[in-house]
């Protein structure tokens, strides 16, 4: 059994974004999704600092830091892109106009609760950014994360112990071991790494898993 690496996770997620979708990619791992959109498929990327139609990174030396994404990295604009101010940008988010947002997470609960903004440590400087807006706003709230912590504990949990970013908001979780669909009647596995028996995945994830009807068999 070989875990999916970061690019494989991003590619697996990108595969599920249909042509014409409006997508916000969070900082870090989710940003990689942009590089794996299948060729010829038009997907329109949004960044909450006020831009739609983000293109590839600019060549080195051609960065213009008036054109950045939410991670404050220099980006480019595709033909058809547009700029708008923060209230309009978050109106798009909160008003449920984005088809997908892809976020990292500390924990996701089986009811869709998301914890990704604060470890709850007493001395941590709290910082939230746009995470809570995205969590309530996008039509599909997607999480990308490694399934297990470094200590080997599942980040897919019965109930979040970290402070919540949003309640009952996550639809789907892409991990390095499997893809989980969070439904009203439980957590469905859509796909998992080759060579791993479903039972082993179940043991690692701890929370009760079901095989989706459309899932491949291991």
């Amino acid at each position, binding site marked *: 059994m070989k875990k999916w690496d970061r690019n494989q996770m991003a590619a697996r997620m990108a595969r599920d974004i249909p*042509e*014409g979708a*409006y997508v916000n990619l969070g900082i870090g791992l989710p940003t990689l999704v942009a590089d794996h959109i299948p060729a010829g498929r*038009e997907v*329109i990327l*949004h960044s909450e600092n006020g831009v*739609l*139609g983000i293109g590839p990174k600019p060549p080195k030396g051609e960065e213009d830091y008036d054109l950045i994404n939410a991670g404050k990295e220099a980006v480019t*604009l595709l*033909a*058809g*892109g*547009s*700029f*708008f101010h923060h*209230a309009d940008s*978050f*109106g*798009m*988010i*909160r*008003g*449920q*106009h*984005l088809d997908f947002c892809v976020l990292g997470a500390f924990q996701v609960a089986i009811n869709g609760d998301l914890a990704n903004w604060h470890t709850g440590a007493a001395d941590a400087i709290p910082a939230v950014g746009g995470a809570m807006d995205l969590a*309530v*706003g996008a039509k599909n709230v997607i999480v990308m994360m490694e399934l297990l912590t470094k200590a080997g504990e599942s980040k897919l949990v019965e109930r979040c112990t970290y402070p919540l970013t949003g309640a009952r908001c996550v639809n789907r979780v892409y991990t390095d071991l499997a893809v989980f669909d969070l439904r009203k009647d439980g957590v469905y596995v859509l796909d998992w790494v080759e060579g791993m028996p479903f039972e082993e995945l179940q043991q690692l994830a701890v929370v009760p898993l079901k095989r989706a009807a459309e899932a491949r068999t291991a």
Partner: protein
Amino acid sequence: MIDKTIATAAAAVADVHDGATILLGGFGTAGLPTELTDALVARGARELTIVNNNAGNGDTGLAALIGAGCVKKIICSFPRQADAWHFEKRYRAGELELELVPQGTLAERIRAAGAGVGAFFTPTAYGTDLAKGKETRRIGERDYVLEMPIHADFALIKAHRADRWGNLTFRMTARNFGPIMATAARCTIAEVDEIVPLGQIDPESVVTPGIFVKRIVRVRHAPQSV
């Protein structure tokens, strides 16, 4: 390839269903989606709720829709006009419900729907008959009335230029309700004077980003003056 172009106004409104709530752009003749409105009359869906600044005048456009008996309710700020006879006749006959909303509250309720705001407190109409029965609150030194968003199934608007992603620009005061209505409907349909290649609209000057627009239709008539 994304292409939101629809060949005809009729095709663009073909799925407007009985009982739909429709945001209809325009103030005066500026920004009225006349071809989409004509197509809506031809479509013949019934029991519609129409949101527009006015209640139609003369015998065309919204007035024709009312005249055809398609409209159950109008939400507007200014239904009174010398030639608003179709509205007046049905309103006086009790066949047409009217929800009268101050113009700025109408705009803000539409904007709230588009921006995911659940409700808001506005000072407009406080202490007047139009606030009767509404929740009020004193915040700081001003009195406010609680107002609810106006969500819609469809928005029919008129824009000037579009590209295949649905980005829009408008012409002068024909902008009026178009940009906010585009945000507040599940399906926004824009009739436009011109469809230009992607990238020809300056990204700094896009007024309505394509994310809010599902369908664009090029008008057949010439714009009134360009």
